[in-house]
């Protein structure tokens, strides 16, 4: 959990003094005036602009929009995988712009989990090793035990020594989910988690994701174009052409 220290509180007050009321809720992700452009040849291509939103701790949050609307770019920026041109992102009370690449990596390792559309398991590691990697990166001595326990939770206790190529798509994504939760993240980013799966398998993965999220008290941010999946979250941020077109806040589910 994020615990706001007094100094950070004052810093945030200073930064956002016009919207002081926001500080009454614990915010885990805070995005202000975000802009991102790519240059392709001599052309400047603006992928995101005027993006402002907050995500509260333990919320479930969906970013939706058509292809090319900038969803994945936004996710990458929020998770500290890329840097914005202007604007500020504060993740778990840390301003990302002030961190070096290595500090960003440490932040991800400690507080962030990822689930990808194409699973992205390390092909040369077994299911167990894949799940243990984030913990091992922290130097956790009980990495293996925790990983076995998590694989049991996603129903793969019999396949822990299999390599990704020996697993089905659904199984691979379950390993990925286990890995995403292994470091006990405060926030979990999922990029089209059902995109490469058939409907039935996809539904099982979604259920697993939400159940674990609830059980562990994690914040869940899902990028998807699947509106049905988005309907299951408390917040829906709609993007189009790199701008926010709608931010729907729903009552808790």
């Amino acid at each position, binding site marked *: 959990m994020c615990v706001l220290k007094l100094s950070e509180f004052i810093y945030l007050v200073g930064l956002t003094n016009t919207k002081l009321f926001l500080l009454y809720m614990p915010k885990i992700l805070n995005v202000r005036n975000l802009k991102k452009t*790519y*240059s392709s040849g001599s052309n400047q291509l603006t992928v995101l602009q005027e993006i402002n939103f907050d995500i509260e701790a333990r919320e479930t949050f969906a970013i939706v929009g058509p292809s090319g609307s900038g969803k*994945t*770019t936004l*996710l*990458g920026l929020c*998770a500290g*995988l*890329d840097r914005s041109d202007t604007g500020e992102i504060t993740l778990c009370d*840390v301003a990302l712009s002030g961190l070096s*690449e*290595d*500090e960003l*990596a*440490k*932040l*991800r*390792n*400690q507080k*962030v989990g*990822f689930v*990808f*559309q*194409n699973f*992205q*398991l*390390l*092909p*040369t*590691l077994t299911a167990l*090793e894949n799940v243990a*990697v*984030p913990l*091992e*990166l*922290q*130097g956790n001595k009980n990495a293996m035990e925790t990983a076995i326990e998590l694989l049991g939770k996603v129903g793969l206790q019999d396949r822990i020594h299999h*390599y990704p190529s020996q697993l089905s798509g659904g199984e691979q994504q379950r390993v990925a989910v286990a*890995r995403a939760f292994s*470091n006990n993240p405060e926030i979990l980013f999922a*990029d089209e988690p059902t995109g490469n799966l058939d409907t039935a398998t996809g539904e099982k993965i979604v259920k697993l994701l939400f159940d674990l999220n609830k059980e562990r008290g994690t914040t869940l941010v899902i990028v998807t174009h699947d509106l049905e999946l988005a309907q299951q979250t408390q917040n829906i941020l709609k993007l189009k052409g790199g701008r926010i077109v709608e931010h729907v806040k729903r009552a808790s589910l």
Partner: protein
Amino acid sequence: MKNLYARSHSTAWRWLLKMAWRDGKASSKRLFLFVASIVFGIAAVVAIQSFGENLKQNMALQSKALMGADYKIDSNHPPKETVSKLMDSLGGYQSREISFPSMAAFSGTEATKLVQVRGIEGGFPFYGMLETNPSNAAYQLNNAALVDATVMMQLGLNPGDSIRLGNITLPILASLKSIPGSNAVFSSIAPPVIIPYSFIDKTALVQTGSRVSYDFYFLDPNTDLEKLDESIGKVLDAEDADLDTHLSTSQRLGRRYDNFGKFLNLVAFIALLLGCVGIASSVQIYIKEKVQSIAVLKCLGADNRQVFLIYLLQVIAIGFVGGLLGTFAGVLLQQFFPYLLGDLIPVSFEIAVFPTVLLVGLLLGVIMSVLFSLNPLLGTLHISPLQALRVEGNQTKKKSKSQLFVSAAIVLFIFLFALWVLRNPLYALSFVLGIALTFLILAAVASLFIKLIKKYFPVGWHFPARQGVKNLFRPQNQTLILVLAIGIGTFLISTLYFTKDLLLAQAEIDAQANNPNLILLDVQSDQRQSVKQILTNAELELTEEVPIVTMRLHAIKGILTNAIRQDTTSRINRWILNHEFRVTYRDSLIASEEIQQGKWIGQVSDNTKIIPISVSDNLARDADLTVGDTLTFNVQGVLMKTQVSSIRAVDWGRVQLNFTVLFPRGVLENAPQFWVLSTHVPNEAASAAVQQDLVRDLPNISVIDLRQVLALVESLLGKIAWLINFMAFFSILTGLIVLLGALKTSKYQRIKENVLLRTLGAKGVQIFKIVIFEYGFLGLLGGITGVVLSLVSSQVMAIWLFDAPFIPSWVPFLILIPGIVLLVIFVGLTNSLAVIKSPPLAVLRKEVNV
């Protein structure tokens, strides 16, 4: 926040090692090319270096046995008084010998044979063994002879038969199996015959012009030989005598393997360089395949340093394993060298394993794999975690400072290695420059080709051809990198081939039908008529009749040779000062000679004061002479002033009597001289008959049957050729592995495109054709450029390194280039096989997403 991540240093390293191991274990198949590149390179280096060390070591260990004494003093003349006194002051010699070549006849057989007569007094050899059968034959007590075992066997002789040498006949006591100081190669031409010293005079074979050697052997293990050489070397030089220590004998023997050793080192160098190219390209592919994994690891929170270290640890481990396997293979490999070389090695060969060579092998493995992997490894720093999300970010690929640093380190490594192998900074530097130049030229050729093909694009060709050619200059084309890899590989292989040819050709002797094949040496002036009569009786034609006058240099450019000996700054090679020149005189040049500078003068009048002479180019170089310089010769007591009127290039490779110094007619006709006559004998029987006649009537004449020598040389060359081919094969194998690696790199570039074409409905044949065109052009371009460049490099090495003429063969053009092209096309096709056989999407998932 920092303390959150604090963890002990050792756990961090343990995890990195664990990750490196896990990942490497599952990638072992992909690392095969990597390991293979290292193993072959290191094996060649270790085998060759270790063999060289062993040879040196064995010679040093057995150097006393090679000479049979601690040192000897030798001369081509009976010792003068000063030399005798000097020897007395050293405590006197323990044993002495007079030796010379002569013809020998044997009882019970008509056969005659050129032998090396060695008249020995005293207990020589003091080291090593005089091996005889029956053993311990006391020839001096029994006034008997020991005859070379091979000769005894060839002629069917037994102990108890007798041998006739000049005017004496001695019983043969035993067969001689080996004696220190006799080397197998020379022994086959003039096998040794040992007789008691006191019989030498009675043979009456020691005459003017005979090549007689007087040796005095000393047994004195406690003398500091280098000091001894310093104190008496110059005195002996002045008296035409020489000090020869057991150390210098083994050094001289070692030098005989010089050219051969240089070539082997070249093989090692090339094998290792090819290995390095192999490492660079296999790591390039390897890291390319790991991009997604690296991006994911970074998403999960691994920092740049950790990712870099994981793969660096793998590279170090592979370098170590490769070095270990290569060293092991190299040590095994060198066990075969003595068998391959046999008689060529003068010592009984005991193979030791040298820790330094082993260490160098292991270190080389690690250093070369790390150095040549560093650039692709540094590339991992630029892989963005964003790539896990399949977002193509702004990828700026700048050459960072560290990459420049790595390139500099690579150049330094190649230089240091070349220095270690060649032991000559100038050669090493030229090698590095040569390799760099080759790279530049290949790159220039590739970019020129791209420009040309863009300008003159074959618009009229059918689609697959146009598509294939276009692939050569599309964005992200691989023309430059593949032409470099193929070109360098071909260049090195073909250079090796050419040099091998060059070395083997150097030693080849053309045995044409009409060339003289029987050489008669030491014919005295008054014997010429008798020899001609014998030849006429045997219906043989005299092909050559060359007079020889022996002389020594008295002064060079007006400075006495004695003064030059004292002058430590003199650039004049020492052999010149002591050499007994065998000089001839004639009025014209022969086919193996060509005037380089000055004018050839063939005839002078009696009263000429300064005689115009011609010197060979090697003498001019070693004695620092140019046209117009004066030389004073001591012709058996008479001083003759001469002037260099011309410098000749001499083709020493021809079987012909060639001379360093050539006098014109009109000067030496009346000097004491002897003759060399030659003739052509049609067969073995005719040769034996005429030799018998010669030995009977003129026993002092030595006869050399060139056909025997040729047969011997051929068998020796066969052995060398075997070893050279064997080692060259190693390098070529490495080269092929490298080519395979380079081509595999290209796989990922083209596979997406081919899948797209397939999706758009391209037939299998069309894709094949596209591939054949693209790779065919790449193979041709790289192959031809590589072979042409190797022509240049071989020529350069022929001149500077091997000192031998170079006539390129057609083999690389006819076999290597088509071979390379076919190989490149073949690999290109196998790379595309998956595209043609499986559905497009399956291919994309399998090949690109992994």
